[in-house]
């Protein structure tokens, strides 16, 4: 597998650099999925010749497009994006948008309107199954995102058709745009819900890289015909004390001071 490190401290630093350079939001959404992205890229996703367009690659679908800076950070670590791409984020005439856009190599779908990537991923997994390849499709959805109906339409389909090559990771950070998932639209047990739809489902600490590795290994090596759901309990804004559990970092832009403090925290150089 990849020899690249995908150091979570560096990935978070890249996200902060982008967010500060682009004067943009959604930092909290990116920080909750850093560890799962790092582990997937480091240990599980296959990109032959490190190419985002390799025909036999595994498919990583970021259905929660709002976390795209975490994905960009991994693409930067792979060398698919340059330092200039990071520093010029959101500059006029640049291609990288604030939500996942499939025209960028490395991003499989256009998302941001929620509940789309899951179904596209189910289609890709169905295609791989029909072709008889061993490609895997991993879809990352937010817990808020699973309010959307097509997620559950797709879950029925994936289970009915035994898409064991399909894995959904739910970024269960407990927040959506207007508040906590508990307050907005109660989800109950996400694990139980996916189980009842016919998935093998497991809860995991979404910031414990060893736990994530174990959960992904189990999903990847399972003999069960069922699709897999990994419910990653995460913290929105993870890694920066003043962002953690604070939904305002869905919307807030960094200034020079908050940028410097955040960088100090994520790189472990806090005073």
């Amino acid at each position, binding site marked *: 597998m990849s020899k690249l490190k995908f150091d979570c401290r560096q990935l978070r630093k890249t996200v902060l650099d982008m967010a500060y350079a682009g004067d943009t939001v959604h930092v909290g959404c990116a920080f909750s999925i850093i560890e799962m992205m790092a582990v997937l890229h480091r240990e599980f996703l296959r990109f032959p010749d490190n190419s985002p367009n390799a025909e036999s690659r595994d498919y990583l679908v970021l259905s929660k497009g709002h976390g795209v800076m975490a994905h960009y950070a991994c693409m930067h670590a792979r060398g698919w994006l340059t330092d200039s791409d990071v520093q010029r984020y959101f500059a006029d005439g640049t291609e990288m948008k604030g939500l996942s856009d499939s025209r960028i190599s490395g991003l499989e779908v256009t998302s941001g309107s929620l509940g789309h990537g899951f179904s596209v991923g189910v289609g890709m997994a*169905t295609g791989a199954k*029909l072709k008889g390849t061993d490609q895997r499709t991993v879809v990352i959805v937010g817990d808020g995102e699973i309010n959307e109906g097509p997620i559950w339409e797709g879950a029925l389909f994936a289970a009915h058709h035994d898409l064991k090559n399909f894995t959904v990771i739910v970024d269960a950070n407990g927040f959506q745009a207007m508040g906590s998932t508990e307050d907005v639209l109660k989800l109950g047990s996400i694990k139980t819900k996916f189980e009842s739809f016919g998935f093998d489902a497991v809860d995991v600490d979404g910031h414990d890289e060893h736990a994530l590795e174990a959960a992904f290994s189990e999903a990847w090596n399972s003999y069960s015909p069922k699709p897999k759901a990994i419910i990653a309990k995460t913290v929105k804004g993870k890694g920066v004390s003043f962002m953690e559990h604070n939904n305002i970092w869905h919307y807030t832009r960094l200034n020079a001071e908050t940028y410097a403090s955040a960088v100090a925290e994520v790189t472990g150089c806090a005073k």
Partner: protein
Amino acid sequence: MRSAFSEALVRLAKADSRILLLTGDHGYALFDTFRKECSGQYINAGIAEQNMVGMAAGLARVGFRPFVYGLSAFVPVRVLEQIKLDIAHDDLPVVLMGDGAGFVYSHLGTSHQSTEDIACTRVIPNMMVLSPADRFEQTLCMDWAYQANTPTYLRMGKSDLGDVHPAIPVAKPGDLICIKRGVPHGVVFLATGSMVTTALKLGLKDYPEATIYSVPTIKPINESQVIDVLNDSACIVTLEEHNKLGGLGSLVSEIAGEHQPKPILRVGVDDRFSEMCGTYQYLLKEHGLDVLAVKAKIDVFLKCLVLRSQG
């Protein structure tokens, strides 16, 4: 027309194993032959159109050629955002086939009637929009949809109105197809889908001077042909079983407005839902789209033009 559809689908799928037929639990007997002869290429996605269309995008991404079937009230209208974001944004070759367009489901009410589907799809970039009039155009449009390799909406309306062509016409996508030649610089009827039959009936009986074109391609239409037709006409009547807003009448008016303004009568559905229940013919009457009502509209239009020209 429906058997032409089924035959074309089976023929295409047998020749290209990348073709998959996805249905949202619709088309009960229609796909008997397909299911028998191309069983590995058939997916019933259940009553879950949003997922079905998203999946079609995923399948197209990994090399398949999905043909997605539903009632036009659902495919494309219910799934418009999936078409826009998942399919059209990346110009993926997915063919969306919306059956029962217009007032085919006359007894079932608004949920199954569809008079906004052309307007919805033609404003999405990269989309091709096709609207065949008879079994021959149906076959032609299926081939165009396959060959175009681009997102396509194929609108299938009332299917048992008879033929307007003697055989499959020779035409390219975008072409206007002349089905009756009238006098030069006279009135020209431009009709699409089910209303081509109405236009032809009227032309043969009441308007011998009229030139009539069938317009199976709404987008991308051959604009220079439309301009030529406008140049060679005194006035235009467009006919469609679709809202007057956003359909063929709008399209022709847009081109005329920019290039060759001519008086245009748009015969279509007024901007309202059906009030009553009844047969297809009854509902056409309710909307003023039966032959007699259309004739009355055209007569008033032509009379006004004459009066206007007389000052």
